[in-house]
């Protein structure tokens, strides 16, 4: 350990002499979260390792295991390889790259720091976006010998996209270019041009060497020509995003309603922006009801109730109001004079994070603040090439792709453009079946289009249509494998209904695909669009008062649920024609299974394309136990309670 440089941040004196004075000092530290972007080659891990080391965050036992590891795995010969401190999971250590987001902690006299350390390669775009989403500042590392590379542009674009206000261009490895000012100036000049193109307002360039420790914690004599702050003093001084957010209007998404008894009703949440004090006028969005804040309640350390005079962005609080108004999780409490807008159609940037690509039209769960709604995404307007910033045409978004899309929610949500308010403009999309977080999104603005297409007000409404036919309109949705008997049973059922004087219409896979949907194939994306169109047509017919029988394989739960959501509660009846694959294949009425098995038919459901059976169908018919007419009669009995 003798070759280690001395730690520069010496706080021990006070710790030893007067611990209470030290603790008093350290209780008032603020907290900065930042992200480091760059690849292993840029010396990123070495720089973080040095920050940890210099701020005394490495203990002797960790150092001993680091020494041993350095000799075994290190790339610095007999020297300490700081990079090994930062690489966590065993698999990563073997591969020599970091493949996730790791969070590190260190502190100086002025601040506590949380560093999100993310890998630099293009295939880890999602990891960098994750780290950037909570960062106040980004350190973009470049190797002074290499200058600005493709990845520098990518990292800068992503940091800027995620709205990070403070960008540090850390020109590393200055020791390897003889601490040459001309080289530094050249790189900064190139970067400035690029930053202007990007719309980045400002950045701070610092020449340094993580390995040698120049300009990391203090200004280096090797670069007397550099008069700006060293990296750490700069990190200690920049303004925090959360403090900037205090200047905006008060907004608090409600997380939880606190009702211990009938006398207390509080609304709990994390203040997203602004300040709040007792007596302030607030509005609950979207209901639009106004009230005044009565108190801001918290618990004192002895367990008694304590009220606050004021609370600001970044604090988790519980508010009580002067009047009893309806307010629950998902609502937003905001300053009465400047509440957030509501809308249901948006333009947004999506960063795709899942192996399964975006399916335009599919219904995803959208989580925005504490609101959760169903949302569907249209075919992207364009995809962004993250290396060149070019706009490319694209039908979908794959893992790590970034694109601009139109997004529609099934109900209106409160929002603000991401650039104005991160908390109200950021969202994630969740796949309804796998429950995976598949995308991160930034809302830009609402689209007025929905407002401009006014529904033609008609005097004869859906209720009138149904009354004239003397029936409750329904959509009977048959789902099941190819050859399971959907169309046959639907046909039998329609005959029975006809004799019962019901007005019906049968929509069938084959007849629709020959007309309305003849432009669609059998890819997953086309299957989604196929069902969306059929859903819309069925809905119009139900509005016309008909009992519609729709018989389609409709293999994905998400799309069946999407159609269910198009109709009023109780009008969508999911009928699962439950025929095991081997039975359907044995029947093979149209000879399709044979073709699919022979490889002549691609994307065939049950063979090389999945079928997701309903989890809770309204009606299930088992065709191995009932004939088609029996099944039809069984459905009639279920429907009309016979």
């Amino acid at each position, binding site marked *: 350990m003798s070759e280690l440089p001395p730690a520069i941040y010496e706080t*021990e004196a006070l*710790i030893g002499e007067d*611990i209470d004075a030290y*603790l008093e000092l*350290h*209780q*008032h530290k*603020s*907290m900065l979260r930042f992200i480091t972007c760059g690849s292993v080659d840029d010396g990123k891990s070495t720089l973080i390792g040095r920050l940890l080391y210099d701020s005394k965050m490495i*203990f*002797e*036992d960790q150092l001993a295991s680091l020494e041993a590891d350095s000799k075994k795995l290190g790339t610095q010969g007999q020297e300490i390889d700081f990079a090994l401190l930062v*690489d*966590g*999971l*065993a*698999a990563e250590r073997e591969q020599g790259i970091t493949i*996730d*987001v*790791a*969070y590190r*902690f260190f*502190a100086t006299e002025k*601040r*506590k720091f*949380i560093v999100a350390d993310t890998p630099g390669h293009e295939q880890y775009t999602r990891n960098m976006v*994750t780290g950037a*989403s909570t960062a106040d500042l980004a350190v973009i590392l470049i190797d002074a010998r290499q200058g600005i590379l493709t990845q520098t542009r990518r990292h800068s674009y992503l940091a800027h996209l995620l709205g990070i206000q403070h960008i540090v261009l850390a020109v590393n490895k200055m020791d390897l270019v003889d601490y040459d000012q001309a080289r530094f100036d050249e790189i900064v000049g190139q970067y400035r041009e690029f930053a202007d193109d990007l719309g980045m307002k400002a950045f701070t360039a610092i020449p340094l060497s993580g390995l040698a420790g120049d300009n990391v914690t203090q200004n280096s004599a090797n670069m007397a020509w550099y008069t700006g702050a060293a990296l750490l003093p700069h990190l200690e001084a920049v303004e925090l995003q959360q*403090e900037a957010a*205090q*200047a905006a209007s008060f907004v608090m998404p409600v*997380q*939880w309603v*606190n*009702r*211990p008894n009938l006398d207390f009703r509080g609304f*709990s*949440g*994390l203040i997203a922006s*602004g*300040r709040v004090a007792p007596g302030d006028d607030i509005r609950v969005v979207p209901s639009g009801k106004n009230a005044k804040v009565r108190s801001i309640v*918290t*618990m004192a*350390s*002895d*367990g008694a109730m304590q009220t606050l005079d004021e609370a*600001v962005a*970044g*604090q*988790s609080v519980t508010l009580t109001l002067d009047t009893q108004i309806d307010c629950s*999780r998902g609502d937003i409490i905001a300053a009465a004079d400047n509440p957030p807008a509501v809308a249901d159609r948006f333009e947004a940037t999506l960063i795709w994070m899942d192996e399964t690509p975006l399916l335009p039209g599919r219904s995803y769960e959208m989580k925005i603040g*504490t609101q959760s709604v169903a949302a569907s995404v249209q075919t992207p307007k364009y995809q962004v090439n993250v290396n060149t910033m070019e706009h490319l045409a694209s039908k979908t978004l794959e893992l790590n792709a970034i694109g601009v899309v139109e997004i529609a929610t099934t109900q209106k949500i409160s929002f603000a453009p991401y650039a104005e308010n*991160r*908390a109200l403009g*950021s969202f*994630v999309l*969740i796949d309804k079946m796998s*429950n*995976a*977080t598949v995308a991160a999104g930034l809302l830009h603005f609402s689209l007025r289009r929905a407002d401009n297409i006014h529904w033609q007000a008609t005097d004869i409404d859906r209720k009138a249509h149904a009354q004239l036919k003397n029936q409750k309109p329904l959509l009977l949705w048959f789902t099941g494998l190819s050859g399971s008997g959907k169309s046959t049973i639907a046909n039998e059922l329609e005959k029975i209904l006809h004799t019962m004087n019901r007005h019906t219409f049968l929509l069938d896979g084959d007849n629709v695909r020959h007309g309305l949907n003849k432009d669609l194939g059998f890819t997953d994306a086309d299957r989604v669009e196929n069902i969306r169109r059929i859903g819309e047509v069925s809905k119009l017919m139900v509005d016309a008062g008909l009992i519609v029988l729709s018989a389609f394989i409709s293999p994905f739960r998400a799309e069946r649920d999407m159609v269910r959501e198009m109709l009023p509660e109780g009008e969508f009846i999911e009928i699962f024609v439950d025929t095991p694959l081997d039975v359907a294949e044995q029947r093979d009425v149209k000879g399709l299974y044979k073709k699919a098995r022979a490889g002549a038919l691609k994307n065939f459901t049950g063979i090389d394309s999945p079928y997701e059976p309903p989890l809770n169908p309204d009606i299930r018919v088992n065709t191995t136990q009932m004939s088609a007419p029996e099944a039809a009669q069984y459905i009639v009995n279920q429907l009309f309670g016979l």
Partner: protein
Amino acid sequence: MSELPPKRLTHLQRLEAESIHILREIAAQAEKPVMLYSVGKDSAAMLHVAKKAFFPSPPPFPLLHVDTTWKFKAMYQLREKAAQDAGMELLVHKNPEAQAQGINPFDHGALHTDMWKTEGLKQALDKYGFDAAFGGARRDEEKSRAKERVFSFRSADHRWDPKNQRPELWNLYNAKKAKGESLRVFPMSNWTELDIWQYIQLENIEIVPLYFAAPRPTVERDGLLLMVDDARFPLRAGETPKMRSIRFRTLGCYPLTGAVESEATNLSEVIQEMLLTTTSERQGRAIDQDASASMEKKKQEGYF
């Protein structure tokens, strides 16, 4: 209102606000959450944050202690009191198989942790049908924890797949899961050991007295300084308990937890020692010293 200078929140205020937010997200979304309570200082801090998060209601979930029967006596004493003070139900689970087989840390080594803790925890979660469990783990404790999510998704058999973790953006935590699957949730992820100590001091949180130095009977064994907490401690030939002024930086099963010699009898002195010391806190735990990446392996198997 924008003319006012910004109110500066301290790092502890921000950490507390973040932890409260996480606790409430789960309370609002999980069907049956539980807080794992180990009686240690991290549990004490987490429990205090939970009391604040839901005040004046008591936290809307029970406490669960996965007991190994080998904890320090002083821990059992504080356990009941802490639950009562918080107005929360305390559930205690002891793995019946481990009990029947008399599994203990002296004779069974790694099997002790595996059966009592790893298996015991899975049993308890299954028994009560909890779908989300809060734990007090911090990212600064160990390298593999640095990459742990706040919401850590577990399969129906409680396994953790480090390659299949959900991305966590902003403060939007995805709590969705299928039946049988569960979440482990770490509200204190971004706290450091020093943060925990400072918070305990500022908020005046009661902790087990073993964290403070006092003369206690000890033996030195395999490089660890062990406390002879009760008569079950089998002394080896030549071992006689010796009174030493000791305290603990971390508390677990007493036969597996190494003490440090210390004169620190109050929080300021404990923090002072911690800051001046040169070994990290997990070094006092026998469990971590098997292999460099041992914690990651244990987590994949379901250890918290």
